[in-house]
């Protein structure tokens, strides 16, 4: 086992554990922190795989921005922690079924993929190359995605605005 493989497994275990804790934690703030660790682990994994740009973006966007937003909303909205109780069986059953299905699908994909038997060649994606690759070869998909995001932003604005005026009318 090379040093890289060791690191990979350490990181993989850390990601799986922190994610596991994150979804079972009762304390929302703690859950967010574990999730941040999980994202951080994934970022390191990306780095290890030769994609420093993706690693940085993972930290900036997921660990940095999105999770802070989560934290912000948790702090704003709910001051007290959720009471300790198990969710009812009705919620457990679909969750378990979905989980099993997901695992099975994953296994099938992994074992039927053509390149699954061979280790990837060491690659290095520099920002410039990645940018060229994305914007020259997949420009249409990027435009579509950005359009979608724009629609989402306008929608969010609209929703937020309507609620605001509704709020002032009340008293």
């Amino acid at each position, binding site marked *: 086992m090379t040093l890289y493989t060791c690191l990979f497994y350490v990181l993989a275990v850390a990601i799986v554990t922190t994610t596991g804790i994150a979804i079972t934690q009762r304390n929302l703030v703690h859950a967010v922190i574990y999730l941040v660790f999980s994202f951080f682990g994934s970022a390191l994994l990306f780095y290890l795989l030769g994609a420093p740009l993706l690693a940085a973006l993972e930290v900036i966007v997921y660990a*940095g921005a999105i999770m*802070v937003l989560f934290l*912000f909303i948790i702090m704003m909205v709910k001051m007290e922690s959720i009471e300790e109780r198990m969710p009812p069986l009705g919620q457990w059953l679909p969750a378990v079924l979905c989980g099993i299905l997901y695992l099975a699908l994953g296994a099938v994909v992994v074992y039927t993929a053509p390149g699954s038997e061979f280790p990837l060649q060491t690659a290095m994606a520099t920002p410039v190359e990645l940018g060229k690759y994305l914007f020259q070869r997949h420009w249409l998909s990027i435009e579509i995605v950005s359009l979608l995001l724009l629609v989402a932003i306008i929608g969010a604005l609209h929703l937020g605005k309507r609620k605001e005026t509704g709020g002032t009318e009340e008293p």
Partner: protein
Amino acid sequence: MLTWSLGFLILMVKLGAVLLFLLLAAAYLVWLERKFLARLQVRYGPNRAGKYGLLQPIADMIKMLTKEDTIPEGADRVIFLLAPAVVTVTALLMFAVIPFGGDLSFLGKRIPMVIADLNIGLLFVFALSSLGVYGIALGGWASNSKYSLLGGIRGAAQMISYELSLGLSLVPVVMLAGSFSLVDIVRAQEAYPFILVQPLAFVIFVISAMAESKRIPFDLPEAENELGAGYHTEYSGIRFGLFFLGEYVNMQVLGALVAVLFLGGWSGPFLSGPAWFCIKILVVALVMIWIRGTLPRLRYDQLMALGWKVLIPLALVNIVVTGAVILI
């Protein structure tokens, strides 16, 4: 093996030197701030502890180190204890990619004056600064105090908002330099510093940077008049000291970034690279202190409006214009 250990040794030396420099500079930045503010306010400032009060930071540090470390009842202990470290560590780590000067020759080896010249250097800085928010938000949350909580919420909202304009304002710089590496960006400014071609980006960056470092007029997370001490209300002794330290290291980071991105980094006539670099950081820091001594504080919604409605659109326009100019 020999080269490897030599490289490791050099790395360690660089790390130690930078860390020592940063901590000392942070301490004396506090001294400088107290003296300079005092001068702005027609008074002397500390002058009893050592000549010109030069030992004042040492006295404050020893005092804080030997003060009781209180943990409020009902606090989330682990998070409460770790939050200050997050702020300081992320601030310190940012210096890993900042170049202090040109390459140095030592025993026939070229030693770059930077700890790690990453090709995503700038993104690395952003990543760390976005993680620094956690120290503020979680410190405020874990204290189990309403003032801290409000400070934490303000901090989280403010920092993610200004992260955007901070990042966007730098896109033109990256476009001009063609690289995320800070060393490359400095090299790209050999002819002229970017402040000349990107004045708008410079202004947006400086404003956002001040908001990121939570200084007047953007010091809402710790607004003394409103929230007591804000997110660090419940911290005493050295943990409070760590927040303090983080803030001043942050100030240096931002000074360094302004120097690297807009003022041509270490380049300058007559003096050596690192000297120029320090002078530039110092100038930026003094301007920030000056602003602190002059302006009132914004309100929360005004702060948000400034970020989202003014700075971000301006930064976007700047990107488009710069792109168009580069294409033509």
